[in-house]
């Protein structure tokens, strides 16, 4: 059997008023303490390279050409069937360090690259599958629009300069190196 010992109240506690004033002074002081609420749209959450946001296609900083060669590996890797790619040939020119154009060659690039953001589960498999360092998970998290159609992102919404994605790319390389070093099947 548990016997709960009641605390015998002192006279000032029985009067009740001193205790009220104590409590009121406490809440008054609380009014001037710093606020803990984050003002979300103006003050977004801090993101880091670990943040797995929406996938984005990297473009080279030098000439703005897209890195993707429309091989279709991400399309296959995607567990949600969110990616649709239609490829085409394009003429690119190799540039030397001095900036001279040395030779022209034919390269593949996507004519259409669509990610249905309503299907995308932000798993990052496309990023792992990509052999050309072309698709990466960015730190962009906000996803809202008025129609379903507008949420199927095309090339225009997916392209990002590679410098913007650099922290994530470096992080992925670091993680892969660590994984390779610890792998027994190397």
């Amino acid at each position, binding site marked *: 059997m548990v016997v709960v010992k009641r605390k015998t109240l002192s006279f000032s506690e029985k009067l009740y008023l001193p205790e*009220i004033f104590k*409590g*009121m002074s406490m*809440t008054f002081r*609380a*009014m001037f303490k*710093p*606020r803990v*609420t984050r*003002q979300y749209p103006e003050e977004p959450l801090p993101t880091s390279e670990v943040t797995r946001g929406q996938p984005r296609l990297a473009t080279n900083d030098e000439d703005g050409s897209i890195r993707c060669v429309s091989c279709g590996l991400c399309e296959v890797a995607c567990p949600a069937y969110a990616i649709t790619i239609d490829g085409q040939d394009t003429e690119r020119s190799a540039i030397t360090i001095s900036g001279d154009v040395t030779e022209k060659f034919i390269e593949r690039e996507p004519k259409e690259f669509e990610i249905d953001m309503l299907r995308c589960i932000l798993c990052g498999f496309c990023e792992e599958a990509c052999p050309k360092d072309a698709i990466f998970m960015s730190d962009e998290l906000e996803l809202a629009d008025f129609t379903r159609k507008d949420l199927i992102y095309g090339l225009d919404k997916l392209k990002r300069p590679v410098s913007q994605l650099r922290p994530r790319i470096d992080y992925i390389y670091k993680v892969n190196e660590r994984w390779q070093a610890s792998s027994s099947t190397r």
Partner: protein
Amino acid sequence: MEMLITIAVIVAKITCIYGGMITIAALTTLAERKVSAWIQFRHGPNRVGPWGLLQPLADGVKFIFKEELVPDSANKWMFRLAPALAAMPAMMGVAVIPFAAESPFYGDVNQAGLTNPLAIADLGIGVLFILAFSGLSIYGIILGGWASNSKFSLLGAIRATAQMVSYELAMIISIMAIVVMSGSFNLTEIANAQSGEIWNWNIFSQPVAFMLFLIATFAETNRHPFDFAECEPELVGGFHTEFSSMRFALFFLGEYCAIFVMCCMTVLFFLGGFHVPFWEEAPWFLQVGAMLAKIIALLFLFIWVRWTIPRFRFDQLMGLGWKVFLPVAIVNLLITGGVVSFMGGN
């Protein structure tokens, strides 16, 4: 011609005072949310207008456009009447509150040719008028609770009625001590008796009556820590559980208007009324400013207490009302009466 001026002055006074009261009541709802937020380390509403100042307007628009639901088993006529009956008496009280010693309106004189105070009606029985109407406000609550035909509403209404009736006694008797001291039921004269130095305020000569009146005011307006009429964890919403849309808003408007009137009463009875301390002949706008400053300080106290003190238990509340407040108020009145008659007059 004189008749026309009198009517115009009365209409102007009603417009100013009622408009001001509704505005302050609306801003009090905002202040309530703001202060509660600050006490809980939050920001409070700050999206609508600068510092969220237009939030009451947004709330009002929302309430008007919401669907009005009437329960199938409710007493329809009573159900529709109750919100009006709750809001009307609360707003009536402000009619006798003086906001300055002399009205700034041209031609606002009484039959003796003296300037009236800045009140809609400077009644000789102003105290009784306010007390009568604050007593009437019970009807809105009990009708709302009963007509909803819901257990929670009825329980809330019964609690509210029991609470308001028992605390009204202590409140009125504590005021009577002031009435005995100033020898008048007129609110302007009660305020004038406290003009001049700050220690003329009744709070210093009647601290017990002040505490009794203040706490009874919390109970009378159904505020924390005595908000049994709508105590959420036990009774859902209490008497307004079944109300929606603008009808619900009317209950709230009535509640905040009642708080405003009670704050006016406290200021007039205990805090020197509209008088600026140490300056008896202050111009009217300074007197209105002094009155409003005191009212706003009291409104802040109301909100501050709400977010500090937990709710009483109902038997504790009734015990406090009948076993503590009533005897203390009667003894206070007896001592005051004895002292006043012993000193000979005022």
